């Protein structure tokens, strides 16, 4: 008997190709798992519309499930709901900072310039940072500078 927990355990090993310490669960991309006689079906919520990693993540989920013995799994894209960085878990936020990326603040549906500009430095924790660019090395990152430890850093964008 396959349990949902077994599927979620596998999903916890499927990482974002652009932030390899963060799983699809940490990112809040999994909307649900259903099991039927036809196999496992995972509902995936894409992040940024133009994110090139989405198709890789989709393939990586079916590959990981196949390797764990769940053949014929399916990934369905959730198109009605919108992903927000508010869906990143507490655990995910900790992992982001350990990876050297600033974590997004909660936006609760309304993104402001203030939320985009202000972030604590992931290296020294200082709030004395400045926004250098709203666009970074991937669609989900912005570029900042810490005035205290004098290091540039990237941040996972609030969206």
């Amino acid at each position, binding site marked *: 008997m396959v349990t949902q927990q077994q599927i979620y355990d596998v999903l916890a090993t499927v990482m974002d190709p652009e932030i390899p310490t963060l799983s699809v669960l940490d990112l809040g991309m999994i909307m649900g798992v259903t099991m039927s006689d036809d196999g496992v079906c995972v509902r995936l919520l894409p992040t*940024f*519309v*133009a*994110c*090139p990693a989405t198709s890789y993540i989709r393939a990586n989920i079916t590959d990981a499930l196949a390797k764990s013995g769940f053949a014929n799994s399916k990934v369905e894209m959730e*198109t*009605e*709901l*919108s*992903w*927000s960085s508010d869906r990143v878990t507490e655990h995910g936020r900790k992992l982001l900072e350990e990876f050297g990326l600033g974590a997004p603040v909660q936006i609760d549906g309304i*993104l402001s*310039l203030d939320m*985009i500009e202000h972030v604590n430095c992931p290296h020294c924790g200082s709030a004395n940072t400045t926004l*250098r*660019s*709203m*666009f*970074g*090395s991937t*669609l989900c990152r912005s*570029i900042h500078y810490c005035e205290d430890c004098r290091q540039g850093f990237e941040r996972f*964008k609030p*969206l």
Partner: protein
Amino acid sequence: MNDVAIKDLLYRMADDELIIGHRNSEWTGLGPILEEDIAFSSIAQDQIGHALANYGLLNAEFGEPIPDIIAFSRNEKDFHSSHFVELPIGDYAFSLMRHFLFDHAESIRYSMLTVSSFAPLASLAKKIKGELKYHVLHADMWVAKLGKGTEESHAKMQSALNEAFPYALGMFEPSKLDKELKSENIFEGETALQTKWLEAITPILERANLQLSNLPIKERMYGGRQGYHTEYLQPLLDEMTEVYRLDPAATW
């Protein structure tokens, strides 16, 4: 639902996004500073992604060909892009001004579409709206900085605005299907969009000491929505589709 009118709307939006995305990507490797190089490349990536999403809707909801075929194998006259997005990148001031004028229109258009009665487009609009916030804030910041910067930066931005404005108005070329779109609550229409757009950009330009008031609103570059294009679109399409045309049946 009025399929013909929705398809027309989706083609107009997606073609503008694809063509301006291609144009903005021409800054990759050439931006005046590294951050701006990255910004224009990211904005281009978003725009091509948004075009892909709209072509995807045309394919999934209306049985149009798959996005790659729509994007790479149509003739120039089958494109519905406005003249504004076809113009070459010019100098950085022009590209920045076009980015400002285009992304404000795009942002308002998608806000209007979040309440569209065509549900798949309303869902997509809700997703895209947040991403466009970054585009608009980026553009606003540079328009303010350079408009109020030095005499030279101000002059360049004002001249870019003068040059871009009649073309920007061409984005709102009304469609004969706008009435259907409005009566079925799919989209309020280009005229309503233009009004909201002017309301949004005017105070920002004023704060940046840039003059909009003496620019003629009656001079506007129409024709793109009906397949009549500038001399710049065909060479762009030739370049964009060069690799695709080598072997259209290739699997990527």
